[in-house]
Protein backbone atom coordinates (compact mmCIF):
# COMPACT_ATOMS: atom_id res chain seq x y z
CA UNK A 1 0.00 0.00 0.00
CA UNK A 2 1.40 3.36 -1.06
CA UNK A 3 0.82 6.48 0.95
CA UNK A 4 0.77 9.95 -0.47
CA UNK A 5 1.12 13.03 1.68
CA UNK A 6 -1.75 15.45 1.05
CA UNK A 7 -1.01 18.30 3.42
CA UNK A 8 0.27 19.38 6.77
CA UNK A 9 -2.64 19.84 9.15
CA UNK A 10 -0.87 21.12 12.24
CA UNK A 11 2.65 22.51 12.49
CA UNK A 12 5.03 22.57 15.45
CA UNK A 13 3.53 25.78 16.87
CA UNK A 14 0.04 24.41 16.49
CA UNK A 15 0.93 21.26 18.44
CA UNK A 16 2.55 23.29 21.19
CA UNK A 17 -0.46 25.61 21.52
CA UNK A 18 -2.92 22.71 21.54
CA UNK A 19 -1.01 20.98 24.34
CA UNK A 20 -0.84 24.21 26.37
CA UNK A 21 -4.60 24.69 25.96
CA UNK A 22 -5.29 21.06 26.93
CA UNK A 23 -3.09 21.53 30.01
CA UNK A 24 -5.11 24.58 31.08
CA UNK A 25 -8.36 22.72 30.48
CA UNK A 26 -7.17 19.84 32.68
CA UNK A 27 -6.43 22.25 35.53
CA UNK A 28 -9.72 24.10 35.06
CA UNK A 29 -11.91 21.00 34.87
CA UNK A 30 -10.29 19.36 37.89
CA UNK A 31 -10.02 22.61 39.86
CA UNK A 32 -6.29 22.15 40.30
CA UNK A 33 -4.03 19.13 40.12
CA UNK A 34 -4.85 17.18 43.25
CA UNK A 35 -4.62 13.41 42.63
CA UNK A 36 -3.91 13.96 38.92
CA UNK A 37 -1.57 11.53 37.14
CA UNK A 38 -0.74 11.57 33.42
CA UNK A 39 -0.30 8.33 31.46
CA UNK A 40 0.65 8.15 27.78
CA UNK A 41 -0.32 5.25 25.50
CA UNK A 42 2.67 3.83 23.63
CA UNK A 43 4.13 4.88 21.30
CA UNK A 44 3.27 8.52 20.53
CA UNK A 45 1.06 9.13 23.54
CA UNK A 46 4.17 8.85 25.71
CA UNK A 47 6.01 12.01 24.60
CA UNK A 48 2.70 13.90 24.46
CA UNK A 49 1.99 12.88 28.07
CA UNK A 50 5.45 14.06 29.10
CA UNK A 51 4.89 17.44 27.44
CA UNK A 52 1.52 17.85 29.14
CA UNK A 53 3.10 16.90 32.48
CA UNK A 54 5.78 19.56 32.10
CA UNK A 55 3.17 22.14 31.00
CA UNK A 56 1.17 21.38 34.14
CA UNK A 57 4.29 21.87 36.24
CA UNK A 58 5.03 25.17 34.57
CA UNK A 59 1.50 26.48 35.06
CA UNK A 60 0.80 25.26 38.60
CA UNK A 61 4.33 24.66 39.92
CA UNK A 62 3.49 21.12 40.92
CA UNK A 63 5.18 17.81 40.04
CA UNK A 64 2.71 15.36 38.53
CA UNK A 65 3.40 11.58 38.28
CA UNK A 66 3.91 10.43 34.70
CA UNK A 67 3.77 6.93 33.24
CA UNK A 68 3.49 5.00 30.00
CA UNK A 69 1.09 2.22 29.10
CA UNK A 70 1.59 -0.53 26.52
CA UNK A 71 -1.71 -1.99 25.35
CA UNK A 72 -0.47 -4.79 23.06
CA UNK A 73 -1.55 -7.57 25.43
CA UNK A 74 -5.08 -6.11 25.51
CA UNK A 75 -5.65 -5.60 21.79
CA UNK A 76 -8.67 -7.16 20.12
CA UNK A 77 -7.10 -7.26 16.68
CA UNK A 78 -3.98 -9.39 17.30
CA UNK A 79 -5.24 -12.06 14.94
CA UNK A 80 -6.09 -9.67 12.10
CA UNK A 81 -3.29 -7.14 11.90
CA UNK A 82 -0.50 -7.79 9.45
CA UNK A 83 2.50 -7.39 11.72
CA UNK A 84 2.76 -8.82 15.19
CA UNK A 85 3.47 -5.97 17.58
CA UNK A 86 6.35 -6.23 20.04
CA UNK A 87 5.15 -6.04 23.61
CA UNK A 88 6.74 -2.97 25.13
CA UNK A 89 6.94 -2.31 28.79
CA UNK A 90 4.30 -0.59 30.81
CA UNK A 91 6.07 1.80 33.15
CA UNK A 92 3.76 3.18 35.78
CA UNK A 93 5.85 3.63 38.94
CA UNK A 94 2.91 4.64 41.14
CA UNK A 95 -0.44 3.27 42.26
CA UNK A 96 -3.36 4.46 40.12
CA UNK A 97 -5.97 3.61 42.75
CA UNK A 98 -8.04 6.68 43.73
CA UNK A 99 -6.16 8.84 41.22
CA UNK A 100 -7.60 10.96 38.43
CA UNK A 101 -5.87 9.53 35.39
CA UNK A 102 -5.34 11.70 32.32
CA UNK A 103 -4.87 9.17 29.50
CA UNK A 104 -3.03 10.61 26.49
CA UNK A 105 -2.79 9.45 22.88
CA UNK A 106 -2.02 11.03 19.53
CA UNK A 107 -4.99 10.01 17.38
CA UNK A 108 -8.52 8.98 18.34
CA UNK A 109 -10.06 6.89 15.55
CA UNK A 110 -12.10 3.69 16.08
CA UNK A 111 -11.76 3.88 19.87
CA UNK A 112 -10.37 0.34 20.11
CA UNK A 113 -6.96 1.42 21.42
CA UNK A 114 -8.67 3.43 24.15
CA UNK A 115 -10.90 0.46 25.01
CA UNK A 116 -7.76 -1.69 25.42
CA UNK A 117 -6.07 1.03 27.47
CA UNK A 118 -9.08 1.26 29.81
CA UNK A 119 -8.93 -2.50 30.41
CA UNK A 120 -5.19 -2.34 31.00
CA UNK A 121 -5.57 0.52 33.49
CA UNK A 122 -8.34 -1.24 35.39
CA UNK A 123 -6.01 -4.23 35.88
CA UNK A 124 -3.48 -1.92 37.52
CA UNK A 125 -5.86 -0.54 40.13
CA UNK A 126 -9.10 1.38 40.61
CA UNK A 127 -8.68 5.00 39.53
CA UNK A 128 -11.17 7.58 40.77
CA UNK A 129 -11.70 8.67 37.19
CA UNK A 130 -10.11 8.40 33.76
CA UNK A 131 -10.11 11.35 31.38
CA UNK A 132 -8.97 11.13 27.78
CA UNK A 133 -6.73 13.73 26.13
CA UNK A 134 -6.10 13.40 22.42
CA UNK A 135 -4.06 15.46 19.95
CA UNK A 136 -6.29 14.74 16.95
CA UNK A 137 -9.76 13.26 16.68
CA UNK A 138 -10.43 11.93 13.16
CA UNK A 139 -13.88 10.43 13.73
CA UNK A 140 -15.14 6.98 12.57
CA UNK A 141 -15.71 5.63 16.07
CA UNK A 142 -16.65 1.95 16.36
CA UNK A 143 -17.16 2.05 20.14
CA UNK A 144 -18.99 4.48 22.45
CA UNK A 145 -15.85 6.38 23.45
CA UNK A 146 -15.17 10.14 23.41
CA UNK A 147 -12.32 12.40 24.40
CA UNK A 148 -12.43 14.94 27.25
CA UNK A 149 -9.67 17.10 25.75
CA UNK A 150 -9.11 17.41 22.02
CA UNK A 151 -6.25 19.23 20.29
CA UNK A 152 -7.97 19.37 16.92
CA UNK A 153 -10.95 17.68 15.30
CA UNK A 154 -10.00 16.54 11.81
CA UNK A 155 -12.82 15.03 9.74
CA UNK A 156 -11.28 12.38 7.48
CA UNK A 157 -12.33 9.69 5.06
CA UNK A 158 -11.37 6.10 5.79
CA UNK A 159 -8.91 6.15 2.89
CA UNK A 160 -6.95 8.83 4.62
CA UNK A 161 -4.41 8.44 7.38
CA UNK A 162 -3.34 10.87 10.05
CA UNK A 163 0.39 10.72 10.60
CA UNK A 164 1.55 12.34 13.82
CA UNK A 165 5.27 13.14 13.93
CA UNK A 166 6.86 14.09 17.21
CA UNK A 167 10.35 15.47 17.86
CA UNK A 168 11.19 12.79 20.45
CA UNK A 169 10.53 9.94 17.99
CA UNK A 170 10.44 11.32 14.46
CA UNK A 171 12.74 14.34 14.74
CA UNK A 172 10.09 16.98 14.03
CA UNK A 173 6.66 18.09 15.19
CA UNK A 174 3.91 17.91 12.55
CA UNK A 175 0.53 16.34 11.94
CA UNK A 176 0.20 15.29 8.31
CA UNK A 177 -2.74 14.02 6.30
CA UNK A 178 -1.91 11.07 4.05
CA UNK A 179 -4.00 9.27 1.47
CA UNK A 180 -3.84 5.64 0.41
CA UNK A 181 -3.35 5.31 -3.31
CA UNK A 182 -3.37 2.16 -5.42
Amino acid at each position, binding site marked *: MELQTKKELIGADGIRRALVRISHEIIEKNEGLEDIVVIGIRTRGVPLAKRITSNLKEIEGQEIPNGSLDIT*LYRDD*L*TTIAKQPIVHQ*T*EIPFDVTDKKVILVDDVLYTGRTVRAAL*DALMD*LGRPESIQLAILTDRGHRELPIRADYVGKNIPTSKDELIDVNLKEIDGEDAVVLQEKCE
Partner: protein
Amino acid sequence: MSLATKDLLGLENLTQENIEIILDNAKSMKEVLGRSIKKVPTLRGKLVVNLFYEPSTRTKSSFSLAAKRLSADGMSLSAKRSSVVKGESLVDTARTLRALGADAVVMRHGVPGAAKLLAETIDIPVLNAGDGAHEHPTQALLDLFTIQERKKNIAGQKVAIVGDIKHSRVARSNIWGLNKLGAEVRLIGPSTLMPEQIEDLDVEVYSDLEAGLKNVDVAYLLRIQRERQDKGFFPTIKEYTKFYGVREKHLKLAKEDALIMHPGPINRGIEISSQLAYDEQSVIEDQVSNGVAIRMALLYLLIEGGNQDE
Protein backbone atom coordinates in the same frame (compact mmCIF):
# COMPACT_ATOMS: atom_id res chain seq x y z
CA MET B 1 8.04 -8.04 14.61
CA SER B 2 7.27 -11.72 14.79
CA LEU B 3 9.57 -14.70 15.09
CA ALA B 4 10.49 -16.07 11.70
CA THR B 5 9.65 -19.56 12.88
CA LYS B 6 6.55 -21.67 13.56
CA ASP B 7 8.03 -23.64 16.44
CA LEU B 8 10.63 -23.41 19.16
CA LEU B 9 12.68 -26.57 18.75
CA GLY B 10 16.12 -25.47 19.91
CA LEU B 11 18.60 -22.65 20.06
CA GLU B 12 20.83 -24.16 17.40
CA ASN B 13 18.47 -22.98 14.68
CA LEU B 14 17.33 -19.74 16.27
CA THR B 15 18.94 -16.55 14.96
CA GLN B 16 20.48 -13.99 17.26
CA GLU B 17 17.74 -11.57 16.21
CA ASN B 18 15.00 -14.01 17.18
CA ILE B 19 16.62 -14.66 20.56
CA GLU B 20 16.68 -10.92 21.19
CA ILE B 21 13.01 -10.53 20.21
CA ILE B 22 12.09 -13.24 22.73
CA LEU B 23 14.18 -11.64 25.50
CA ASP B 24 12.66 -8.19 24.80
CA ASN B 25 9.12 -9.51 24.95
CA ALA B 26 9.90 -11.39 28.17
CA LYS B 27 10.91 -8.11 29.81
CA SER B 28 7.38 -6.79 29.28
CA MET B 29 5.88 -10.06 30.50
CA LYS B 30 7.94 -9.78 33.66
CA GLU B 31 6.38 -6.36 34.32
CA VAL B 32 2.93 -8.02 34.11
CA LEU B 33 4.06 -10.62 36.69
CA GLY B 34 4.99 -7.81 39.08
CA ARG B 35 1.48 -6.35 39.15
CA SER B 36 -1.17 -7.10 41.74
CA ILE B 37 -3.37 -8.54 38.99
CA LYS B 38 -0.85 -10.77 37.23
CA LYS B 39 -3.00 -11.66 34.26
CA VAL B 40 -3.68 -10.23 30.81
CA PRO B 41 -6.39 -11.25 28.32
CA THR B 42 -4.07 -11.73 25.33
CA LEU B 43 -4.64 -15.45 24.60
CA ARG B 44 -8.26 -15.70 25.66
CA GLY B 45 -9.90 -18.70 24.03
CA LYS B 46 -6.62 -20.33 22.99
CA LEU B 47 -5.74 -23.86 24.06
CA VAL B 48 -2.22 -24.82 25.10
CA VAL B 49 -1.64 -28.56 25.53
CA ASN B 50 1.13 -29.98 27.70
CA LEU B 51 2.36 -33.29 26.39
CA PHE B 52 4.96 -34.78 28.71
CA TYR B 53 6.45 -38.18 27.97
CA GLU B 54 9.02 -37.69 30.74
CA PRO B 55 8.32 -36.62 34.30
CA SER B 56 8.70 -32.92 34.97
CA THR B 57 7.42 -30.70 37.71
CA ARG B 58 9.12 -27.39 37.17
CA THR B 59 8.99 -26.95 33.42
CA LYS B 60 5.45 -28.25 33.23
CA SER B 61 4.09 -26.02 35.99
CA SER B 62 6.01 -23.06 34.61
CA PHE B 63 4.39 -23.53 31.19
CA SER B 64 0.93 -24.01 32.76
CA LEU B 65 1.34 -20.85 34.77
CA ALA B 66 2.53 -18.90 31.73
CA ALA B 67 -0.56 -20.00 29.79
CA LYS B 68 -2.83 -19.01 32.69
CA ARG B 69 -1.23 -15.58 33.05
CA LEU B 70 -2.06 -14.94 29.37
CA SER B 71 -5.65 -16.20 29.86
CA ALA B 72 -5.15 -19.27 27.65
CA ASP B 73 -6.73 -22.57 28.61
CA GLY B 74 -4.29 -25.27 29.57
CA MET B 75 -4.64 -29.00 29.32
CA SER B 76 -2.34 -31.89 30.10
CA LEU B 77 -2.43 -34.96 27.96
CA SER B 78 -1.01 -37.70 30.09
CA ALA B 79 1.41 -39.64 28.00
CA LYS B 80 2.56 -43.04 29.08
CA ARG B 81 6.18 -43.17 30.01
CA SER B 82 7.89 -45.02 27.29
CA SER B 83 11.55 -45.11 26.43
CA VAL B 84 10.87 -46.33 22.94
CA VAL B 85 9.90 -43.74 20.39
CA LYS B 86 7.14 -44.90 18.13
CA GLY B 87 6.97 -42.40 15.34
CA GLU B 88 3.53 -43.62 14.46
CA SER B 89 2.04 -43.10 17.88
CA LEU B 90 3.42 -39.58 18.05
CA VAL B 91 1.81 -38.78 14.72
CA ASP B 92 -1.48 -40.18 16.01
CA THR B 93 -1.20 -38.02 19.09
CA ALA B 94 -0.61 -35.00 16.88
CA ARG B 95 -3.84 -35.69 15.00
CA THR B 96 -5.71 -35.99 18.29
CA LEU B 97 -4.34 -32.65 19.44
CA ARG B 98 -5.50 -30.99 16.25
CA ALA B 99 -8.93 -32.52 16.63
CA LEU B 100 -9.14 -31.14 20.15
CA GLY B 101 -8.53 -27.65 18.79
CA ALA B 102 -5.13 -27.05 20.36
CA ASP B 103 -3.41 -23.77 19.43
CA ALA B 104 0.04 -24.84 20.67
CA VAL B 105 1.71 -27.94 22.05
CA VAL B 106 4.40 -28.04 24.70
CA MET B 107 6.24 -31.36 24.55
CA ARG B 108 8.91 -33.11 26.56
CA HIS B 109 10.14 -36.40 25.18
CA GLY B 110 13.07 -38.67 25.96
CA VAL B 111 14.19 -39.00 22.37
CA PRO B 112 16.27 -36.32 20.62
CA GLY B 113 14.39 -34.89 17.64
CA ALA B 114 10.93 -35.91 18.89
CA ALA B 115 9.79 -32.27 18.99
CA LYS B 116 10.95 -31.80 15.40
CA LEU B 117 9.01 -34.85 14.28
CA LEU B 118 5.87 -33.55 15.98
CA ALA B 119 6.39 -30.08 14.49
CA GLU B 120 6.57 -31.56 11.00
CA THR B 121 3.28 -33.42 11.37
CA ILE B 122 1.19 -30.66 12.89
CA ASP B 123 0.50 -27.11 11.70
CA ILE B 124 0.33 -25.46 15.14
CA PRO B 125 3.38 -24.24 17.10
CA VAL B 126 5.37 -26.89 18.97
CA LEU B 127 7.43 -25.77 21.95
CA ASN B 128 10.22 -28.15 22.88
CA ALA B 129 10.31 -28.61 26.67
CA GLY B 130 13.27 -30.96 26.40
CA ASP B 131 14.04 -33.74 23.91
CA GLY B 132 16.47 -36.31 25.27
CA ALA B 133 20.00 -34.99 25.65
CA HIS B 134 19.44 -32.73 22.63
CA GLU B 135 17.97 -29.34 23.62
CA HIS B 136 15.96 -27.59 26.32
CA PRO B 137 15.50 -24.20 24.67
CA THR B 138 13.16 -22.51 27.16
CA GLN B 139 15.61 -23.24 29.98
CA ALA B 140 18.48 -21.66 28.05
CA LEU B 141 16.34 -18.63 27.13
CA LEU B 142 15.39 -18.01 30.75
CA ASP B 143 19.07 -18.37 31.69
CA LEU B 144 20.05 -15.80 29.05
CA PHE B 145 17.30 -13.52 30.31
CA THR B 146 18.56 -13.84 33.89
CA ILE B 147 22.16 -13.08 32.88
CA GLN B 148 21.04 -10.10 30.80
CA GLU B 149 18.92 -8.78 33.66
CA ARG B 150 21.86 -8.86 36.09
CA LYS B 151 24.74 -8.04 33.77
CA LYS B 152 22.96 -5.78 31.24
CA ASN B 153 24.93 -7.33 28.40
CA ILE B 154 25.60 -10.94 27.51
CA ALA B 155 28.37 -10.27 25.01
CA GLY B 156 31.81 -10.63 26.57
CA GLN B 157 30.62 -12.41 29.74
CA LYS B 158 32.67 -15.45 30.77
CA VAL B 159 30.25 -18.25 31.58
CA ALA B 160 31.44 -21.57 33.02
CA ILE B 161 29.10 -24.56 32.83
CA VAL B 162 30.07 -27.18 35.40
CA GLY B 163 29.10 -30.85 35.56
CA ASP B 164 27.65 -33.54 33.36
CA ILE B 165 27.81 -31.82 29.99
CA LYS B 166 27.52 -35.09 28.07
CA HIS B 167 23.96 -35.89 29.16
CA SER B 168 22.75 -32.32 29.50
CA ARG B 169 20.26 -30.75 27.11
CA VAL B 170 20.42 -27.64 29.28
CA ALA B 171 24.16 -27.32 28.60
CA ARG B 172 23.72 -27.90 24.88
CA SER B 173 21.04 -25.21 24.48
CA ASN B 174 22.98 -22.79 26.64
CA ILE B 175 26.16 -23.25 24.60
CA TRP B 176 24.29 -22.35 21.41
CA GLY B 177 22.53 -19.38 22.98
CA LEU B 178 25.51 -17.93 24.83
CA ASN B 179 27.73 -18.22 21.79
CA LYS B 180 25.15 -16.54 19.55
CA LEU B 181 24.94 -13.60 21.92
CA GLY B 182 28.72 -13.26 22.15
CA ALA B 183 29.54 -14.76 25.55
CA GLU B 184 32.71 -16.79 26.19
CA VAL B 185 31.74 -20.33 27.18
CA ARG B 186 33.82 -22.64 29.34
CA LEU B 187 32.90 -26.21 30.17
CA ILE B 188 34.17 -27.81 33.36
CA GLY B 189 33.83 -31.49 34.24
CA PRO B 190 35.52 -34.88 34.20
CA SER B 191 36.47 -36.08 30.75
CA THR B 192 34.03 -39.00 31.09
CA LEU B 193 31.17 -36.46 31.20
CA MET B 194 32.30 -34.42 28.18
CA PRO B 195 30.70 -35.24 24.85
CA GLU B 196 33.00 -36.16 22.00
CA GLN B 197 34.10 -33.35 19.67
CA ILE B 198 32.81 -30.73 22.05
CA GLU B 199 35.59 -28.33 21.03
CA ASP B 200 33.85 -27.93 17.68
CA LEU B 201 31.25 -25.87 19.51
CA ASP B 202 33.59 -22.92 20.17
CA VAL B 203 34.10 -23.54 23.88
CA GLU B 204 37.06 -23.93 26.23
CA VAL B 205 37.17 -27.22 28.09
CA TYR B 206 38.60 -27.56 31.61
CA SER B 207 38.91 -30.67 33.74
CA ASP B 208 40.15 -28.66 36.72
CA LEU B 209 37.38 -26.81 38.57
CA GLU B 210 39.60 -24.12 40.07
CA ALA B 211 41.31 -23.28 36.80
CA GLY B 212 37.98 -23.16 35.00
CA LEU B 213 36.29 -20.85 37.47
CA LYS B 214 39.05 -18.26 37.44
CA ASN B 215 37.62 -14.81 36.56
CA VAL B 216 34.25 -16.05 35.38
CA ASP B 217 31.17 -13.80 35.45
CA VAL B 218 28.76 -16.71 35.75
CA ALA B 219 29.15 -20.17 37.29
CA TYR B 220 26.40 -22.38 35.91
CA LEU B 221 26.14 -25.66 37.81
CA LEU B 222 24.35 -28.64 36.32
CA ARG B 223 22.39 -31.18 38.30
CA ILE B 224 24.29 -34.40 38.72
CA GLN B 225 22.14 -37.45 38.03
CA ARG B 226 22.83 -40.09 40.63
CA GLU B 227 22.06 -42.90 38.20
CA ARG B 228 25.09 -41.97 36.11
CA GLN B 229 27.28 -43.36 38.87
CA ASP B 230 25.92 -46.85 38.20
CA LYS B 231 27.00 -46.57 34.60
CA GLY B 232 30.55 -45.76 35.65
CA PHE B 233 30.86 -42.15 34.53
CA PHE B 234 32.30 -41.33 37.95
CA PRO B 235 33.26 -43.61 40.86
CA THR B 236 31.13 -42.21 43.69
CA ILE B 237 29.01 -39.15 44.41
CA LYS B 238 31.42 -38.29 47.18
CA GLU B 239 34.32 -38.25 44.80
CA TYR B 240 32.40 -36.11 42.29
CA THR B 241 31.64 -33.60 45.03
CA LYS B 242 35.27 -33.53 46.11
CA PHE B 243 36.48 -32.51 42.66
CA TYR B 244 33.50 -30.71 41.09
CA GLY B 245 31.18 -29.70 43.94
CA VAL B 246 31.24 -25.89 44.04
CA ARG B 247 31.76 -24.35 47.49
CA GLU B 248 32.43 -20.94 48.99
CA LYS B 249 36.19 -21.08 48.38
CA HIS B 250 35.64 -21.63 44.66
CA LEU B 251 33.51 -18.54 44.38
CA LYS B 252 36.49 -16.43 45.45
CA LEU B 253 38.23 -17.43 42.22
CA ALA B 254 35.43 -16.02 40.11
CA LYS B 255 34.81 -12.32 39.62
CA GLU B 256 33.59 -10.48 42.69
CA ASP B 257 30.09 -10.00 41.32
CA ALA B 258 29.82 -13.43 39.68
CA LEU B 259 26.42 -15.09 39.48
CA ILE B 260 25.66 -18.64 40.58
CA MET B 261 23.08 -20.37 38.43
CA HIS B 262 21.46 -23.80 38.43
CA PRO B 263 18.56 -25.17 36.37
CA GLY B 264 17.12 -26.94 39.44
CA PRO B 265 16.22 -28.98 41.29
CA ILE B 266 19.49 -28.70 43.20
CA ASN B 267 21.28 -31.57 44.92
CA ARG B 268 22.35 -29.65 47.99
CA GLY B 269 25.81 -30.66 49.17
CA ILE B 270 26.63 -32.46 45.91
CA GLU B 271 27.14 -30.13 42.94
CA ILE B 272 26.55 -27.05 45.10
CA SER B 273 27.05 -26.41 48.80
CA SER B 274 24.02 -25.38 50.87
CA GLN B 275 25.48 -21.98 51.66
CA LEU B 276 26.10 -21.18 48.01
CA ALA B 277 22.59 -22.15 46.93
CA TYR B 278 21.19 -19.38 49.09
CA ASP B 279 24.11 -16.98 48.77
CA GLU B 280 23.28 -13.45 47.69
CA GLN B 281 25.18 -14.08 44.46
CA SER B 282 22.88 -16.99 43.69
CA VAL B 283 20.14 -16.18 41.17
CA ILE B 284 18.55 -19.64 41.20
CA GLU B 285 15.18 -18.30 42.35
CA ASP B 286 15.28 -15.51 39.73
CA GLN B 287 15.70 -18.23 37.12
CA VAL B 288 12.45 -19.85 38.28
CA SER B 289 10.39 -16.66 38.13
CA ASN B 290 12.00 -15.53 34.87
CA GLY B 291 11.03 -18.89 33.37
CA VAL B 292 7.36 -17.91 33.50
CA ALA B 293 8.06 -14.59 31.74
CA ILE B 294 10.08 -16.31 28.99
CA ARG B 295 7.37 -18.92 28.41
CA MET B 296 4.67 -16.21 28.28
CA ALA B 297 6.71 -14.37 25.64
CA LEU B 298 7.07 -17.55 23.58
CA LEU B 299 3.39 -18.47 23.79
CA TYR B 300 2.45 -14.93 22.75
CA LEU B 301 4.95 -14.77 19.89
CA LEU B 302 4.25 -18.24 18.50
CA ILE B 303 0.47 -18.44 18.91
CA GLU B 304 -0.33 -14.91 17.75
CA GLY B 305 2.56 -14.81 15.28
CA GLY B 306 1.17 -17.88 13.52
CA ASN B 307 -1.81 -15.86 12.34
CA GLN B 308 0.27 -13.23 10.62
CA ASP B 309 0.45 -12.78 6.88
CA GLU B 310 4.12 -11.91 6.89
